[in-house]
């Protein structure tokens, strides 16, 4: 691994002398900001807590992902003292943060599924339309040009066939073709008057920007061996080519402000050899994801900011939320023939925009990935899932012909599923705070999460289940399981913990992504989302990052 100090000479991790911008976090958010600003001619330093992942090891990661002997968190080396956290969750709610984030150059997009979706107009105005949650201080129209740029930067394959989204131009690549199993859903939806359309993905449908098109490893989550799936390291590399400097394995410890607390002067970071350095700059961008961003602000408490930096509003760490989901699984008589890919190709936003406040937004996604991997069944001796191993730790005892029988049974190609993404309304008592009873490898208190979903999700989930049952009935499928809307996990998307707003007493950043309290501190992350509809955040993170970069560039140039 490049940057592993045990292998060869340690890279230089001392601070840069005359940095214009210090970006903390090298995921897609940090990568895009750094790339834009370096391209505009500014001197940029990027710090990341994790390592650079060597491209040549990608197949070894694939093997770890596929072989059930390995924990999923091993794939991207998550876990251990660095990544500890604690949680208090009510019954029925689960969270496994270290399966949901990756620390290192590229960040969590190394692991993501590539769904690159825009929010809808209504998502920006939830308070004024429905009296729910809070409005964004910007509208869809403000973000629309940035969405288009973000789609070009990430490389999105998607059609212009979604009648529920207003777009000014096509996505840069054609949509991935529908899977054979999509046809089943499509016919049933047509009969029911439900419009379906392509699912936009930041996965190359053709060769683009020196990256392969998808070649069907079907392991996109957690690792795409071909590089067809976009990940944030693409922009970190491009930022480096434009002159930015990257310091890996350099977790920021705290942020230091000036005497009167109106601007930041330096970020203090640690290195693997135990040194602590200070990176000074004119502008500072925090892009550490929805958990570590509020944590870093809370860790940076001072006399001026006793509740954490940039936290005069008291909202840093509050309003943690993610979208939720429910699913309906069924069996059909014919073979489903899902394609050998690892992603959804068709969805429906028919139930996205709603008239009444509740039930809220529903996004239907038609699964076309066979949930069962023969490798997993075979390597667990006939157990049909990794989950089963956790429940029943003794491995199944089959091999030879008996194992083949079980593997064939588990991958019978007759299971279909619909998943509905559900809008979640953020609550002030779902939080990221510091757990001072436990510390990480640098002696800093670990993050503590509290999270609950509230009744809006449950009611929306119940409505979604009715719709999905109707579709399955129309297909003539036999429903085998329905998930419980009250049992949710904190999904892979961590939003809301440094939210955006126009009122400094109720939010952390303004419409330009600049903190209300400190004029040269910016945040680029889903942590700024006041709401997020029923969809995944990353295209919006990317659009906001490009927007933030524009504002910072203006400031540096003026």
């Amino acid at each position, binding site marked *: 691994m490049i940057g592993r100090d045990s292998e060869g000479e340690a890279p230089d991790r001392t601070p840069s002398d005359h940095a214009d911008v210090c970006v903390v976090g090298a995921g897609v958010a940090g990568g895009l900001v750094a790339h834009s600003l370096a391209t505009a001619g500014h001197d940029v330093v990027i710090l990341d807590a994790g390592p650079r992942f060597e491209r040549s090891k990608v*197949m070894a990661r694939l093997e770890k992902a596929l*072989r059930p002997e390995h924990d999923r968190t091993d794939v991207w080396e998550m876990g251990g003292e660095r990544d500890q956290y604690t949680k208090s969750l009510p019954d029925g709610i689960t969270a496994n943060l270290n399966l949901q984030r990756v620390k290192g150059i590229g960040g969590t997009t190394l692991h993501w599924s590539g769904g690159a979706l825009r929010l809808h107009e209504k998502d920006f105005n939830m308070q004024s339309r429905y009296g729910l949650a809070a409005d964004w201080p910007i509208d869809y129209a403000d973000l629309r040009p940035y969405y288009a740029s973000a789609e070009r930067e990430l490389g999105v394959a998607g059609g212009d066939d979604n009648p529920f989204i207003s777009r000014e131009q096509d996505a840069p690549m054609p949509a991935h073709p529908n899977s054979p199993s999509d046809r089943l859903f499509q016919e049933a939806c047509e009969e029911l008057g439900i419009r379906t359309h392509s699912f936009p993905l930041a996965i190359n449908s053709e060769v683009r920007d020196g990256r392969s098109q998808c070649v069907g490893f*079907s392991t996109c989550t957690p690792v795409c061996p*071909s590089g067809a799936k976009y990940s944030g390291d693409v922009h970190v590399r491009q930022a480096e080519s434009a002159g930015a400097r990257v310091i890996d394995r350099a977790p920021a410890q705290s942020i230091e402000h000036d005497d009167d607390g109106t601007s930041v002067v330096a970020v203090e970071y640690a290195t693997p050899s135990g040194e602590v350095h200070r990176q000074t700059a004119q502008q500072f961008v925090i892009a550490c994801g929805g958990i570590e961003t509020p944590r870093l602000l809370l860790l940076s408490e001072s006399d001026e900011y006793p509740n954490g930096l940039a936290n005069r509003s008291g909202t840093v760490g509050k309003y943690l939320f993610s979208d939720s989901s429910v699913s309906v699984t069924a069996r059909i008589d014919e073979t489903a023939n899902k394609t050998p890919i690892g992603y959804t190709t068709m969805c429906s936003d028919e139930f996205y925009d709603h008239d009444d406040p509740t039930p809220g937004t529903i996004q239907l996604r038609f699964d076309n990935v066979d949930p069962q991997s*023969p490798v997993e*069944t075979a390597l667990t001796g006939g157990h049909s899932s990794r989950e089963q191993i956790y429940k029943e730790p003794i*491995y199944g005892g089959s091999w030879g012909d008996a194992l*083949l029988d079980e*593997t*064939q049974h588990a991958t019978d190609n007759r299971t279909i599923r619909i998943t509905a993404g559900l809008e979640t309304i953020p609550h002030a008592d779902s939080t990221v705070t510091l757990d001072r009873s436990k510390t990480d490898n640098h002696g800093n208190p670990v993050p503590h999460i509290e999270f609950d979903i509230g009744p809006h999700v449950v009611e929306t989930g119940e409505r979604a289940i009715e719709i999905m049952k109707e579709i399955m009935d129309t297909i003539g499928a036999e429903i085998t399981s329905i998930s419980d809307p009250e049992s949710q996990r904190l999904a892979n998307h961590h939003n809301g913990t440094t939210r955006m707003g126009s009122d400094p007493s109720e939010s952390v950043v303004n419409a330009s992504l600049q903190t209300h309290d400190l004029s040269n501190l910016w945040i680029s992350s889903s942590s700024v989302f006041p709401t997020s509809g029923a969809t995944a955040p990353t295209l919006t993170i990317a659009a906001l990052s490009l927007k933030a970069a524009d504002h910072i560039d203006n400031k540096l140039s003026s």
Partner: protein
Amino acid sequence: MELTRRDVLAALAATGVAVGTGAVLRSEPGDDGPIGDHEVATLVAVAGVVYPSAVEGVESFVSEYSVTRVRDRPTYAAGVADAVEALDEYTRDWYDEDFADLDAETRDRALSGMDVDHADPDPEGSERERIRYYLVNELLYALFTTPTGGELAGIENPQGTRAGPRPTSGGRTDGGERR
């Protein structure tokens, strides 16, 4: 169902061994490393037990896969050799012969007798756990990441196998650069 060269290449690709379609596959171990003829013969013998009987061409598949797989991976090769030694020790105790020299039925009985079928695969575990990891699961991983393994299991393309580019409407279908 016959395992072919295409399967060996697919299985190797899923372990990160860089093999082009024109690669020369060796089935003879070199003299130097911990994997010699005996280790390869033992892997073939284990495959005879754990692979479904419908699979043909096991000997050349396993030899070519294993020899190429452990080349340049000394730690892994040592793990395999060590697991073979542990298995032989057990069969010598019980049957006075190395595992590879037993008949098919006794091999199956020996592996089950050692409780390998109910052991957790663990590269750092007990003997039977290491045998499960380095011999049994290693061979099953190889089989079920091949097109033939996928076909056996009943799906078009198992996870971890490069299926080839998907056509898009208007999209190009040539393979791209690896970044």
